[in-house]
């Protein structure tokens, strides 16, 4: 992990209630809930001087929690450059998906 990703990992791990934050976990990994799963999603580039001037990566951050009234999504929503995308339930687990530029 590069330094920037380590910082994000630490930021997500430190949200109260999160057992663990997983970066692009393999399909066969047994995850502990409540958790955050995040993965590279997109990126935005600003251009100047005929070159990319600033490149910002976007991550899809999914909070997975059996508690329907979990406060973890509020922690993710409070991060700068974070926006809520959607919510769904699967296998009795609530998924709140966010887009986060970091």
């Amino acid at each position, binding site marked *: 992990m590069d330094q920037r990703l380590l910082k994000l990992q630490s930021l997500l791990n430190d949200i109260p209630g999160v057992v663990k934050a997983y970066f692009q976990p393999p399909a066969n990994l047994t995850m502990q809930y409540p958790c955050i799963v995040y993965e590279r999603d997109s990126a935005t580039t*600003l251009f*100047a*001087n005929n070159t990319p*001037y600033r490149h910002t990566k976007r991550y899809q951050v999914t909070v997975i929690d059996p508690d329907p009234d979990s406060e973890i999504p509020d922690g993710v929503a409070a991060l700068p450059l974070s*926006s809520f995308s959607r919510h769904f339930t699967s296998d009795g687990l609530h998924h709140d998906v966010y*887009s986060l*530029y970091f």
Partner: protein
Amino acid sequence: MAEIVWDAPGTRVYETGVDHGVLYLPDVTGAYNTGFAWNGLVSVSESPSGAEATPQYADNIKYLNLVSAEEFGATIEAFTYPDEFAQCDGTASPEEGLFIGQQRRKTFGLSYRTLIGNDIDATDHGYKLHLIYGALAAPTEKAYNTVNDSPEAITFSWELTTTPVAVPGFKPAAQLTLDSTKVSSVKMALIEDLLYGASASEPALPLPAEIISILAAA
């Protein structure tokens, strides 16, 4: 007699891009002897004005057009600006880190490069160097917005008006353009050494007379 051919290989020329922006500050003699890199340059929109025709009528016909003087103006957009540009934007800095607005605006010079492309070499075909003299920046809006859910950066913008400088043999002008596809590479290198500095010289904006003499030299 040769027949006209359109869009032959190598003639599908276009222009694009902007980079290598340099700010030049004049000394008391008007010579632009110091240059500073302008990072984050997004666009330079050239907007000449004037040269408006005023028709004159006589003998029941349009007799002639009187044309007003032409002026050069431009708009610069950039994510940032050199610290030295602050004095050109009406900001004084009496102490390190302190900036006082609404001060006298200093004139400046500017150079930037645009790319020339064609269907064979793409943007490696050549470039143009644009030199602007006697520029004065007008106050413009700086809109600071909250950080939101998408990464954005403020794009600063300045509108320039210019005061032309003397050009031997021609009317005074505020803008010169050099085309690398037409000027020899040796002379372009010489001019770029002047503009961007070299191991033994500081960056400077040569006046039109000096540019013309370099190009006219054998």
